[in-house]
């Protein structure tokens, strides 16, 4: 997602290549590029200036060790500074309180309602909480309705007061209601408001005063431009929020806002929104983000994501099946589902170091498996269990049923068989089989 920024930095570092040590002269061009890249990424003008100055101070006089090139050294310096700028370690949200009250605030269209529902889902499934949502946006048409639909999707109750135009009262009443019902987290969604709208800003201050939330979160669109600083500050002055939520990071924005906000308001970014699905919410890790900006990948997140979806019992069963050569299309489908559960395929791949750049112009998204699934779903249960029975006429029927070409069906079956053989070798095979496997891999045709 930050490909463009890291690409630019990479290019600017190339200028440094071939120089033995960092001097005022050979660093000037690089710093200019760094500054321009940061501005293009919507980092605030002042922060970009301070940042490049800091980098320059740290870089000058550094003796370039023989082991690293000046470019690599600069990357390290920029990386360290980036990580520092975005805050130290990850900070959790405060859930102490019965119920713990979380207030959500932000501009129009920043994604407050979607985030509120995602947060409820996150607290319910990962923290074992019983959350309740409160529909406090009484202004935008159908906003309450939107929260209700999302609440239903994730199985969380949504507190509403029909006809009420008083968000302060709604918020107050909701907490009493939650306490009676035994909910331990209350998430209060509010209407979007402009920082310059005095009346609306008074309203949100008043809500905060009346419900004294344990955690106030400011939701901001990652694509926000130079105004991010002012907005973040204005909301901070009025609400003294505890954390920031950065949304729509699945776009191709270079996300300069992320770099800026923390340094202006000294409040941590606690969550990032990375898609429209309810599970597309991530905890924010400043250091990983710095890695990612510099195209160093985000292996730690990837591993965690895989672990989260991994079911040990199911895996053991699968291994047995593979060993007995009983791996069938149903298992294949399960595997696809697992990958899909981990999130957007492109996102996943972009976390692997070096992949970000390669993926830039590639057409991969959630639908990558659609065709394969369609073909498998067009098979009878018997065919899925026992792929051996797939003769010519069955294949023709499957092609027709799934709306694909017979060649595609053939290719999938062939791929499936290759996979099956390979998996079997990997689980049962010792070194003896390895050589054969390698050969097979070479023979396998890439799609």
């Amino acid at each position: 997602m930050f490909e463009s920024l890291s690409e630019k930095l990479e290019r600017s570092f190339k200028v440094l290549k071939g120089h033995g040590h960092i001097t005022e002269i050979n660093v000037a061009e690089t710093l200019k590029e760094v500054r321009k890249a940061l501005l293009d990424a919507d980092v605030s003008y002042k922060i970009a200036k301070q940042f490049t100055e800091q980098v320059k101070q740290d870089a000058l006089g550094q003796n370039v060790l023989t082991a690293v090139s000046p470019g690599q050294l600069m990357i390290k310096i920029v990386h360290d500074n980036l990580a520092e700028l975005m805050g130290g370690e990850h900070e959790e949200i405060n859930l102490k309180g019965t119920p713990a009250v979380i207030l959500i605030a932000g501009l129009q269209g920043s994604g407050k309602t979607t985030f509120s529902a995602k947060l409820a889902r996150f607290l319910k499934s990962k923290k074992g909480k019983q959350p309740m949502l409160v529909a406090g946006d009484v202004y935008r048409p159908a906003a309450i309705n939107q929260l209700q639909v999302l609440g239903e999707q994730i199985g969380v109750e949504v507190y509403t007061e029909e006809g009420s135009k008083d968000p302060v009262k709604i918020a107050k009443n909701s907490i009493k209601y939650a306490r009676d019902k035994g909910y331990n987290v209350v998430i209060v969604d509010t209407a979007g408001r402009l920082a310059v709208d005095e009346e609306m800003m008074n309203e949100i201050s008043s809500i905060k005063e009346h419900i004294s939330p344990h955690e106030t979160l400011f939701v901001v669109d990652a694509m926000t431009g130079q105004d991010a600083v002012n907005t973040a500050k204005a909301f901070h002055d009025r609400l003294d929020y505890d954390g920031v939520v950065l949304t729509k990071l699945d776009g191709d924005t270079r996300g300069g806002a992320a770099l800026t906000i923390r340094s202006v308001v000294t409040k941590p970014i606690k969550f990032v929104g990375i898609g429209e699905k309810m599970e597309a919410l991530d905890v924010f890790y400043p250091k990983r983000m710095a890695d990612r900006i510099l195209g160093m990948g985000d292996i730690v997140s990837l591993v965690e994501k895989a672990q989260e979806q991994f079911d040990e019992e199911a895996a053991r069963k699968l291994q047995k099946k593979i060993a007995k050569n009983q791996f069938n299309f149903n298992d294949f489908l399960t595997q696809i589902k697992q990958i899909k559960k981990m999130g957007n395929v492109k996102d996943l791949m972009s976390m692997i170091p070096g992949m970000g750049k390669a993926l830039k112009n590639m057409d991969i998204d959630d639908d990558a498996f659609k065709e394969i699934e369609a073909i498998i779903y067009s098979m009878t249960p018997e065919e899925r269990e026992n792929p051996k029975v797939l003769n010519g006429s069955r294949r023709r029927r499957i092609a027709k049923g799934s709306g694909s070409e017979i060649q595609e069906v053939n290719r999938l079956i062939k791929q499936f068989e290759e996979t099956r053989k390979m998996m079997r070798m990997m689980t049962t095979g010792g070194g003896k089989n390895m050589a054969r496997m390698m050969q097979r891999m070479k023979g396998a045709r890439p799609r």
Partner: protein
Amino acid sequence: MGIFSVFSKKKKEKLDESLEKTKSNVFSKISRAVAGKSKVDDEVLDDLEEILVTSDVGVSTTLKIIERIEQRVARDKYLGTAELNQILKEEIAALLAENDKGELLGFDFPKRETPYVIMVVGVNGVGKTTTIGKLAYQFKEAGKSVVLGASDTFRAAAVDQLTIWAERVGVPVVTQGMGADPASVAYDTLQSAVANHTDVVIVDTAGRLHNKVNLMKELTKIKNVMQKVIPDAPHEILLILDASTGQNAIEQAKQFTAATEVNALALTKLDGTAKGGVAIGISDQFKVPVKYIGIGEGKEDLQLFDKFEFVDSLFNK
């Protein structure tokens, strides 16, 4: 003429008021930059660069403007700081005029054979549905009949939101409910418009980030299906951009155009930002005209964008 000029004056006042923040910022900053100086030198130009960049004009457009002023300084030998405002205004107006095509219809257009179809696209949360409500109001005020199509069948309660707007403005809306095929809704809407001889059709679509390839393809499909009813539809593909978006706005404009041939832009939430400058950056970087601007939450808070009025509002006290 009398009524018209009154209306136009009121309109201008609202624009002035909405841009107050941008204006005072650009202004006070420029006056501060030139304070105590009699001529435009490197330092003034540096300050000017900062002012433009922090107004979201964008690095490359800023450099372009600075370069032009530098050329003028070189040519005229001497440029007093007093003239800086005027010159800046001229240069920005010139930049905006370069891409002026002005071929799209305003609210009050002559009767057409077939309905004028507007398809509204954009990323999530920029204000598509709200802009549609305001557009419908403006067309209706201009004496046109309007029908809305609820093709955002994805985001929770989007159909409800559009329906409420339709009621508020008093125009019909064609819906098939949530989860329906957006192209099918668009088809129905156009058919209904043709049957009822409606003047304007406005079709809402779900918000989508421009880097999601398949979602972008869906827009092409909606467009193709519309053409089954009216062969040259949609006449206007309107991309909605949030004025508080930074340089990513240009990327959005580029990629939506690549996917659906956007031919008009609307800039929303211009009242809340100190960064009206994005309108300048977009007009320079991107060859599609800004047609409408959103400057408030009321149904009447939408205007046809007049580049020269905008520059005036930015610079005149």
